[in-house]
């Protein structure tokens, strides 16, 4: 019976003398915020990818109405020119109604029929062998009066710039969260060591090395970081799920974005989950390394 009582050794640094509950709560909040920031980052990257892919596959030719010119003949000339251009897969004239629909939000839907609105030609291009846009624009202008080529590059650049700014902002938020987490762990590690100063003195006097003493404490920080990371990721998944199920996932709402984060097609879905899984791993690493370095530095200053 005595031997069985000795099977389980007491903790060298008592856990009740080193409570890390507050650290777990604050790190959980940090991990939750980090998951939200990563979710936003994934959505931004996915949106940018979609935009740029769509925009780089298509260009538009606009033909303005010029008096005394037969618009249909001009359009036909443009189609012939486009189809003869290397790198153009399909060129199709959009119905006049399509152009009118584009103007409706600005002009309303009354008397639009009488306006001399430009006609649009949608041109699908080969992404891998794009045509020479400068030459194409020149040829269009020389051959068809009132024609101009819109490669969407200006929109692409604007959208990409905005997306990069948002991405950068997300990275800055993540960096700040990491810095805050490191600071919290450092304070907590100092508190634990201060609270156990007598135990540390005795351990030193019986020949314990600094690394041995630090290991008795930093394991608890590692577990705290992992716990906070797992709870944080779970809370964020519930949040995305809640947002995804709370609105219409068919339109471009926050609900749709949250829904797509969780239920994206296989490849993109794996990417979302892998990005979120980084959070508990990084939280564990931050807790372990920050605590270990702080403890070692403090122990070196003791007797």
């Amino acid at each position, binding site marked *: 019976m*005595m*031997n069985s009582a*000795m099977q389980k050794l007491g903790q060298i640094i008592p856990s009740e003398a080193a409570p890390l509950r507050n650290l777990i709560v604050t790190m959980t909040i940090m991990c939750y915020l980090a998951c939200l920031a990563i979710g936003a980052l994934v959505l931004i990257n996915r949106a940018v990818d979609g935009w740029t892919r769509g925009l780089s596959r298509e260009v538009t030719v606009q033909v303005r109405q010029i008096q005394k010119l037969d618009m249909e003949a001009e359009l036909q000339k443009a189609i012939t020119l486009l189809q003869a251009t290397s790198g153009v897969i399909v060129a199709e004239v959009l119905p006049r109604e399509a152009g009118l629909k584009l103007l409706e939000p600005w002009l309303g839907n009354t008397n639009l029929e009488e306006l001399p609105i430009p006609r649009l030609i949608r041109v699908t291009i080969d992404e891998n062998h794009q045509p020479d846009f400068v030459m194409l624009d020149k040829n269009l202008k020389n051959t068809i009066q009132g024609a101009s080529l819109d490669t969407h590059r200006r929109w692409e650049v604007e959208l990409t710039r905005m997306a990069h700014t948002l991405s950068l902002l997300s990275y800055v938020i993540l960096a700040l969260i990491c810095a805050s987490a490191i600071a919290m762990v450092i304070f907590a590690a100092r508190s634990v060591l201060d609270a156990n100063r007598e135990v540390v003195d*005795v351990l*030193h006097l*019986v*020949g314990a090395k600094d690394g041995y003493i630090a290991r008795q404490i930093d394991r608890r920080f590692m577990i705290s970081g992992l716990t906070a990371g797992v709870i944080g990721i779970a809370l964020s998944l519930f949040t995305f799920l809640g947002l995804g199920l709370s609105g219409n996932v068919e339109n471009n709402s926050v609900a749709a974005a949250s829904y797509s984060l969780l239920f994206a097609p296989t490849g993109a879905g794996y990417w979302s989950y892998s990005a979120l899984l980084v959070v508990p791993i990084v939280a564990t690493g931050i807790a372990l390394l920050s605590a270990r370095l702080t403890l070692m530095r403090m122990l070196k200053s003791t007797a």
Partner: protein
Amino acid sequence: MIELQGVGLRYGDGPEILKDVNFRLAQGDMRFLTGPSGAGKSSLLRLLFLALKPSRGHIALFDQDTSVLGRQDISPLRRRIGVVFQDFRLLNHLSTFDNVALPLRVMGQRVDSYRQDVLDLLEWVGLKEQAHAFPEVLSGGEKQRAAIARAVIAKPEILLADEPTGNVDPVLAKRLLHLFLELNRLGTTVFLATHDEALIKQARKPVFRLEAGQLRAA
């Protein structure tokens, strides 16, 4: 094994507690250190287990000059020294068994390898029944015996003890003295600070007297 040359010690800007202390103990020596309270006995012991650095002079332990030791060199030396503190310095959150086993545990030994040794030693010092008890419920004498057991469990090459029989009855004091003598007979260098004249007489070992910070052979 232990050599002090011209050692002086002062705390901060205060007066010198120890003045020109010189002595040498070879392997297997046993000495008592006596003197009035406040003479500097505990400070001298603290110098010997490297908890303090001398203000002047040189201390050599195991033929190593302690003034040139790096921080990483201190732990291996302390593992070769057993210390009985006057205030016991047991860890209140650990059982008597765990306290006694602490030096072996920090050396990385597995509990299976030392469990029986610890229980045997606890039985020898009369604490086997208190193996699972925590220091807070132990009497002063029991704490002292636990502290002695912790100091000797790793079979140190040097044993330093500060008033090791101060809280025990004469019968147990004699029993503990036999433990120290036995360790000494097996090759451990023993240095005991005590006021217990009876103990000194029984042991018949050389004595140093420390008075007003100065050490002389009694």
